[in-house]
């Protein structure tokens, strides 16, 4: 990987959203839902190359559904999903994964009945060797190295999330999609995880993060969007969004 900055360093200067050139991942007027129930009523969202976009908003706003569409787990009913400018509506999740869109789903994105190493091996579907995956992950998270032959389901919540992120990163993704990284974890662990994410974003990977707790992710984001009732109601720089958050959550 590229040389990482010292841990804990402040995130780099916020890049202007449009200046990054072509958005690597883009949703245009996307409508999607579960069976007859529509959840997204026309979502517009763009993740510029090499930037970290935070998707904020209260419960039930459609954040997870948006990410499911981005990762290919949910079909688009109308509108367009674009990767690097090309429409990829209807592409299946595993094909999207091979294109370099890597998702860490909500909860613990691991296989509990496989060992840590076996969990990592499953990332080799995208063309990285086993040795590479293991060395990359264990360098980044030495704790995982100590537990390489343990069943993943027997590790602590933070370690499981570490494993999920480590596996996602070792695929050398173009876009990393993270859903509710903080769910059920201690604040200290969350801070550590987001530091790792910030480093990644600086190394040039585009990141899309959905998060309920805005304070944890806004400091490292380059831009943020607020989702409400299945629509993106506001996009802007983190500082502006922070001011509007309260009104968004309170439905004002």
């Amino acid at each position, binding site marked *: 990987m590229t040389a990482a900055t010292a841990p804990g360093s402040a995130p780099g200067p916020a890049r202007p959203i449009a200046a990054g050139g072509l958005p690597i991942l883009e949703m245009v007027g996307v409508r999607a839902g579960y069976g007859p129930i529509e959840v997204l009523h026309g979502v517009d969202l763009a993740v510029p190359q090499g930037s970290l976009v935070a998707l904020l908003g209260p419960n039930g706003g459609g954040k997870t559904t948006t990410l499911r569409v981005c990762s*290919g*787990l949910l079909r688009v009913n109308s509108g367009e999903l674009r990767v690097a400018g090309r429409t990829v509506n209807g592409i*299946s*999740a*595993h094909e999207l994964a091979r294109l370099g869109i890597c998702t860490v789903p909500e909860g613990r994105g691991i*296989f509990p009945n*496989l060992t840590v190493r076996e969990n990592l091996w499953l990332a080799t*579907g995208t063309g990285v060797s086993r040795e590479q995956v293991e060395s990359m992950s264990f360098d980044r998270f030495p704790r995982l190295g100590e537990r390489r032959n343990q069943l993943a389901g027997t590790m602590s919540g933070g370690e499981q999330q570490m494993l999920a992120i480590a596996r996602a990163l070792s695929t050398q993704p173009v876009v990393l999609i993270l859903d509710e990284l903080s769910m059920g974890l201690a604040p200290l662990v969350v801070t550590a995880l987001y530091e790792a994410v910030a480093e990644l974003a600086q190394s040039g990977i585009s990141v899309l993060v959905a998060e309920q707790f805005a304070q944890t992710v806004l400091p490292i984001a380059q831009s943020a969007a607020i989702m409400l009732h299945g629509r993106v109601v506001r996009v802007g720089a983190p500082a502006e969004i922070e001011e509007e958050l309260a009104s968004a959550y309170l439905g004002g």
Partner: protein
Amino acid sequence: MHLFLTYTIFGLVLGGVYAIAASGLVLTYNTSGIFNFAHGAEAMLGAFVYWELRYGWGLPAPVALILVLGVFGPLMGGVLYLVIMRGLRETAEVTKVVVTVALMLGMLYLSEWFWNPQKDRTVVQFFGITSQVKIFGAEVSTHEIIALGCAVLIGLGLRMFFYRFRIGVAMRGAVDDPGLLQLNGHNPERVAALSWAMGSFLAVLAGVLLPPISGGALQANALTLLVLDAFAAAVFGRLRSIPRTFVGALILGLAASYVLAYFPKTWQWASNFRVSLPMIVLFVVLIVLPQDRLRGATVARTRERAHVPSMRSALIAAVGLLAVVILLRQLMNDSDITTLTVGMTFAVIALSLTLLSGYAGEMNLAAVSFGAIATMIAFHIGITGHGLASRMTLWGIVVGVAITALVGAVVSLPALRLRGLYLGLATMAFGVFLTDMVLMDSNLHKLPLFHTKFSLFSAGAGINSLVIPPLKVGPLDLHDGTSFLVTSTIVFAVIGIGLVALRNSSYGRRLTAMKDSPAASATLGQSLLRLKLSVFMLSAAIAGLGGVMMSMALGSVTPDNFSIFLSLSLLMLTVVAGISYVSGALAGGLLSGVGFSLIVTTFHNLASNHGSVHGLFSFLASFATVSPALIGIGVGRNPSGWVHDMIGNFRTLRTRPWVLAGGAVVEVLLYVLSLTKVLGHWWFAILTFVVLSLLPMVGQMADPEGRRRRAAEVPLEMVGIDSPYDDDLRLTLDRALGIEELAPVPTSRGDRPRTAAAGGGNGRVAPPLSAGVGDAGA
């Protein structure tokens, strides 16, 4: 020593073949979550195809092997997955079981269709019988060495495949979370299809290896039940661990071999015992297995939907059923009446399944076997009088039913500690054990203390059947066909109403809670133990009652009347018709009791009467035997059952009463024509069927708006759950809440188009609630 060595080697070879079969079973169960009851049937088909290629077409053995193992096996598995199993995601366990059971029955019928079971077929060992090696003085045939070698290779190969290869690791990952596997760039469909192809390959391999070891004769039934040996081996590894499955298979093989070697030939039950050994092992292992933890995450989120009928509609339906049966009786001759009575008793047995599977989510694969117990008890203590004057007493039936309930409690022991599928396996083990061991017992036994002689299942003279006279109590005499038919209908109706009442009671709600989430139910303070035990006893009692009545209706019963295949096809047809409904039990029971056998006989009769089109009719007869299986396989697409669908379709006709009235007039006309013998009975049945199925379509054509109105008829609490939450429903909700008259509340963005008004299209002003739902907080 020589004997010991010979039989040990034989046991190891047998165990090796069991292990090959069992590992295939474990493989598919773990990668797709579907426990494949058709695994033995796949082995059977493979063996028959091999026989056809090798001996029918005379191909050399290597070519035949390559074609069967390399092409037929994997292809069958892959196709099964893509066509059938893929559609089984998010269905209840009982639906999955039924689909594979249907597949098993279908394959069995198919093989009987292609390969006449009356004809002898033998498969010779590889390299001939004379090709032998001596190991420490014991003669071992080359075939046996090959079989053992295959088992070892497959054991090692699978171990490597699952732990060293990425696709193998991915297969194990697919159990945990197929969606996550996809996010990592694997195609779960391909992984699952591959596992089914491998499972089918292993089944076919076992099917090719086994027949020469166990005598050489090719028998469809025996090979199909190979699946039971595989089950028994697989439960050793708790259906998960392949190494432990191998150990279990070896234990089974050795035990069977030693029983053959060392049990005295004078023990007549020894051969029955050897056959039922896997069942006994399966049952014991299930009981001593460590307890499964209740998992909070396994809330059943299934596609099955069931409405709870009200007591009023249940009463109306019961009276209607009785009226229909009495009307039909006028059209029938004596043998028809007996047939319908048998069908009705089957429906009673099916009710036990509605209670157990439909309400409580547990499984019983041997419902008819419980009928056998009640029949045996009633035979031994309930009959008085001799010859034509002999009759069954009420006392005999009551005691028979009570003891069946107790046996039910014993059989459900594994279920009290384990999950649904294990109960299914335990009941199947019990059913096969009962037919192989108890019902085959026609010898006289002496009770040492009481100086009495008895035999379990014999009317005397070693004949393997029981004669059961009908019940006569007070003025009620079931020797008369009509009163028997009416009585069995009333029994069905009373138990049916009882079940609806039970479903509406707090006990019924507790059962449903247990079905949906055992963990949540336990944390709310329910005693799962008491619930499961009580519901299983009640269900066994109902099955016992149905079984005694069936025996009385038939007059004389043999072990074949209680075969496991009968129980399986009853369960299958009940699930297809809708196992959560009393009406489903009626349809399933009637179909399995009389329906298909009647159709098959009709086609056979037609075939022998019409020489010119003989081929066509015998094809139709064969097809009719396979058709229940096809229907069963189709249940994956509509897991809630077709009876409910049909009733739902008729509900739409409420808005067009004249269509209903027209249908009724046609039906009455048909009935009168049939009663006056202008119309044959079969024509009456066929035309009635046509009228019943066409009526909703006629209604639909005459009233295209009906669908809309039907949507509005969904009960309010189900709005948005059972049917899509659309604008019409919003209007209905508003109307029901009585806020129609209120003026629309101005929203913050009044210029936004109102979805309700736009979608409703009837010019009404959008009511306030719809606006509130659509635009809340905007």
